[in-house]
């Protein structure tokens, strides 16, 4: 598995992967941070409880204010992760490079596991980089809007920052498992990414909005969103984590089974 892991790291140095993998997450988190701080107001209009990028200066001055914008776009960062995992895996099928890989590493479970771990490391670096840059930007923009940043560097603030990184990262790994499964099933990067994004965004929204209101406690996209936020009004963090762990085990087992059985 070490060989599969280190060989995947070589492939991750490609300019396109660096641009989309690191740049995609960075773009979303930076934009979210800028919008959140620039649109912060002293008081919200009556009846408006605040969501998305519309929050009060007082809220942003709290310990978790630093990562407020980042957590709000965690779904988009997750979609970058889904596209990265699905693209990196399905391209091996569509380009025919999988045959070369299987000749040098015929133990298919080790090949896929090593590849997944390398991608997981890469997306971890992407999350840390994105949050680090977004945080730096937040510190630079906050004084101009009258947001006090002393709580951000308190122990509570640093704890919130660490938790945000962990939660967003775990959600990204979840999106990655989903993307890898679609890639092995469909063997086409375009189709795998399109179907994954379609499922997570409009399809789940339609299901929970029009068909099954309880779906926001059980559908994977909704649960990944809850996980990234450290729990939300639909699912507690523990519920999201445990349910997603079960999904991850089942999906990983199915993916490995399919990858091992199929002709290359």
């Amino acid at each position: 598995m070490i060989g599969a892991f280190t060989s995947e790291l070589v492939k991750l140095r490609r300019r396109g992967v660096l641009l989309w993998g690191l740049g995609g997450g960075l773009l979303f988190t930076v934009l979210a941070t800028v919008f959140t701080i620039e649109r912060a107001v002293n008081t919200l209009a009556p009846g408006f409880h605040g969501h998305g990028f519309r929050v009060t200066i007082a809220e942003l001055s709290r310990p978790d204010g630093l990562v407020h914008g980042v957590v709000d776009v965690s779904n988009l960062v997750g979609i970058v992760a889904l596209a990265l995992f699905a693209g990196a895996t399905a391209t091996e099928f569509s380009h025919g490079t999988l045959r070369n890989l299987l000749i040098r590493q015929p133990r298919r479970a080790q090949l896929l596991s090593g590849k997944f771990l390398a991608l997981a490391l890469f997306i971890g670096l992407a999350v840390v980089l994105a949050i680090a840059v977004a945080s730096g930007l937040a510190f630079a923009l906050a004084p101009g809007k009258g947001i006090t940043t002393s709580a951000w560097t308190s122990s509570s603030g640093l704890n919130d920052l660490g938790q945000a990184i962990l939660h967003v990262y775990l959600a990204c790994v979840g999106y990655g498992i989903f993307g890898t499964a679609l890639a092995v099933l469909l063997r086409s990067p375009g189709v795998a990414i399109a179907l994954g994004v379609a499922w997570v965004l409009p399809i789940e929204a339609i299901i929970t909005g029009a068909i099954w209101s309880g779906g926001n406690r059980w559908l994977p996209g909704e649960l990944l969103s809850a996980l990234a936020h450290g729990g939300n009004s639909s699912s507690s963090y523990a519920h999201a984590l445990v349910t997603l762990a079960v999904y991850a085990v089942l999906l990983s087992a199915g993916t490995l089974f399919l990858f091992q059985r199929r002709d290359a």
Partner: protein
Amino acid sequence: MSSIEQANREDPQSAPKGSPAGDPAVLTSALSKRYGQRLAVDRIDIELPAGVVCGFVGPNGAGKTTTIQMLLGLVRPTSGTAWVLGQPTSDPASYLPRVGALVESPAFYPTLTGRRNLEVLTRLGRLNSGRVEEVLRLVELIDRADDLVRAYSLGMKQRLGVAAALLPEPELVILDEPANGLDPAGIREIRRLLRSLADRGVTVFVSSHLLAEIEAICDHVVMIHQGRIVFQGSMENLLAAQHSDLIAVPEHGHDLDRLAALAAREGKMARVDGEAVRVQAPGDWAAEFNRQAMAAGITLRGLQSTRASLEEAFFAVTEHDGAEREEDAS
């Protein structure tokens, strides 16, 4: 018994166990692969002696690539068994570290350099990283090693594919159409490379539909046609089993018919072919034919013996196979 049947019976299945070359490098038993209704490979038995350069020939769609994919554990056989370097293909990890292969068209990461592409495979197989430089030199790509693969010509990609196959210092090299896209100089280079591998004791199994190339480099041949093996054995025996021709050119054109009749009187098939008479006869009958022509007052200005080419042998064998299938069907 026809010469083809004789060649088939004498050579193929008798080879190697206990021979100086050792156990077969590849052995298959009733190996088959079915895709839906189509039987791509039909109960083939191959026995490839170790240490030979073996051509795997057949037209496009004959089942060459599918067979190679089964030997490499990439495709699961529908039925039958196969062993490579003494290990079952159901456990590819037991023999693939000793095998180098190029399957179908060479596939690489276009936005990585040639060197990085080989590094991916070297790391994956936990191979000596110094091999990358060695194989790049061997296939004469060292000057372009740091260019992106997307800038490579098809011939360069093909050479990179051969380099990738040689990375593990293999005992067996399996190459699927390695001459595709190569210019004549590149083809000659591949030929030289394959011979040098054989000289080092590496078994080479190379598929191609370029029969002249196979004839030039291989000492053993396996022929596949419509998913079935129609011949396997030494190239020499295959070609020796084919009819050879004598081509005689008389000094005067008006002697052509007399010359043909002379050969026919000796029980040889003869026909006028342009300015020459083509006689189906072994090369050592040339002297006798020359004497008889002289005695009949015919002066020859040319007399040569031609050996059947692999291409002619292939068509003879496949025609024979087709006739057998028709007989089976009726």
